[in-house]
């Protein structure tokens, strides 16, 4: 039956790995060897990319807006810090997972507040939760170190084998591997029936329920998963910098994350990663030109993106790479960024 084979081919097509995706990850790994003096900023980018991936899971797939995603980042960061500081879990990978789980628990508990209501309600509730946690962290300074943050964190070698070095090479490779593993998991999830049901909910929650999708349960699940990812990103922050201070909860951190996704786009997983690279590079560039007024330029870039449209910018940026790709691999291999609706 040809219809059947057509259906299975097309149904699986979206989940197939593309050449451009492989190239992306090879390039990311190559950076470790190409720029040995830039580990710190690259680690920063990887962390931000993972954090943005987390927001993309709820925003790009399930349509949940959040202005308080730093809540989970912060909880992950402090959890990792406290675990290391008090020697509760010394091995970084296990501590990382533990910190992610703590954030996931918080995500699960707060999801019940977030899934109710429309976009504006969600923005306010998420913002409120992040502010609340920041205040709590300041109030309970005997645990968190208050405004001084957690001091004197000493990280043990990863798996007992790879010690963190002062140039940040171990930290970068560690972060990159964590990002890649979590990316694979996210990729698997979004191409599953579960992921499809999330997209259906974002498109039309009424209809999603009308075909038997338990809408609230799915939203709780993905919110919890995203909190886990954000917690891991926060834990990576603490582990690679040996710091955890109140700014992990800062509003700017949540807001920057939105900017990253505005730059990179949502709903195809790479938006957060590409957005993180572009955002950090712009930040570096503008800070070197005008250290005081770099926010002005970031603002300008945002306005331009919104006015010109992301699709047109993507075509422009990919014009030269695609010319080259076509020479070698033919027309079909050309890279295109899947467009999601602007969010």
């Amino acid at each position, binding site marked *: *039956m040809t*219809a*059947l084979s*057509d*259906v*299975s*081919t*097309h*149904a*699986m*097509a*979206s*989940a197939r790995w593309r050449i451009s995706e492989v190239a992306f990850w090879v390039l990311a790994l190559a950076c470790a060897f190409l720029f040995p003096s830039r580990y710190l900023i690259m680690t920063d980018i990887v962390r931000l990319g993972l954090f943005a991936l987390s927001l993309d899971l709820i925003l790009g797939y399930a349509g949940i807006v959040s202005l308080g995603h730093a809540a989970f980042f912060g909880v992950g960061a402090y959890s990792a810090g406290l675990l290391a500081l008090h020697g509760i879990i010394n091995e970084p990978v296990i501590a990382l997972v533990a910190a992610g789980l703590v954030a996931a628990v918080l995500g699960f508990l707060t999801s019940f507040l977030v899934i109710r209501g429309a976009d504006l309600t969600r923005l306010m509730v998420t913002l409120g939760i992040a502010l609340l946690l920041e205040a709590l962290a300041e109030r309970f300074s005997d645990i968190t170190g208050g405004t001084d943050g957690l001091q004197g964190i000493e990280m043990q070698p990863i798996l007992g084998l790879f010690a963190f070095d002062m140039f940040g090479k171990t930290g970068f490779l560690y972060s990159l591997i964590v990002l890649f593993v979590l990316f694979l998991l996210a990729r*698997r*999830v979004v*191409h*599953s*029936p*579960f*992921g*499809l*049901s999330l*997209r*259906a909910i*974002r*498109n*039309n929650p*009424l*209809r999603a*329920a*009308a*075909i*038997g*999708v*338990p*809408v609230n*349960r*799915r939203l709780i*699940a993905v919110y919890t998963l995203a909190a886990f990812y954000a917690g891991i990103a926060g834990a990576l922050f603490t582990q690679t910098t040996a710091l955890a201070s109140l700014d992990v909860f800062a509003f700017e951190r949540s807001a920057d994350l939105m900017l990253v996704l505005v730059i990179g786009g949502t709903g195809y997983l790479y938006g957060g990663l590409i957005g993180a690279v572009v955002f950090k590079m712009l930040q570096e560039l503008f800070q070197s030109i005008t250290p005081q007024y770099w926010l002005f330029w970031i603002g300008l870039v945002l306005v331009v993106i919104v006015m010109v449209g992301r699709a047109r910018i993507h075509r422009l940026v990919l014009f030269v790479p695609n010319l080259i790709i076509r020479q070698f691999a033919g027309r079909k291999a050309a890279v295109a960024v899947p467009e*999601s*609706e602007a969010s």
Partner: protein
Amino acid sequence: MTIALETRNLEKSFGGLRVTRDLSLKVMQGARHALIGPNGAGKTTVINQLTGVLTPNSGSILLEGADITGLSVHRRVLRGLSRTFQINQLYPDLTPLETIGLAVSERMGRGGDWWRRMGTRSDVNAEIAEILSRFHLLDVMTELTSTLPYGKQRLLEIAVAIAARPRVLLLDEPAAGVPESERHDILAAVAALPRDVTVLLIEHDMDLVFSFADRISVLVNGGLLTEGAPDEVARDPQVRAVYLGEAADA
């Protein structure tokens, strides 16, 4: 004959407005039952209560004898009560393939699978292929729903409802807004619905109602005016006055 779907003394008010008045309706197993009534008669409110979008103030709803008044929307679907929407309620960014795929997965209880990729279950694929071909959607299955012609979207609307494999199907004005040239496909699809599926049709289009239904209930001001076989209803002077007469004037 058993009763597939039943309402008992259903009441619903919005503020001081009684939109559903003491409505007791019985839809028999395998019936082709039509619910008609002039604009504002409260037909959509009834559908929304049947499907669980709205909760009635009092009264109860029974699906195959079991009380489902308190069940959520998706649980009713899993119990075998499915619907189409008067205005397309589809997923603009999803393809027909994905839309039907999701509905089939959910029905099989596989919608929560987060590890298995779409398209790797042959039983799901076979059913998607069967439904897409039955509703003439195979040729457009990889196109975004938002880009499909309106008639195709209406077909997809019915196909999604069928993919949930309902025992009772609520059709809310299936032919609404469809251009004349594409009407035939819709009517054929409605006529070809499996006989074992009980259908409650909500419709304005009298041609469709009288060609399709074997029983008609007339709703006026939220209450049941009369009920009977199509020819009885057509002859009923009350119905002619409030409904058919009005339609003839329009």
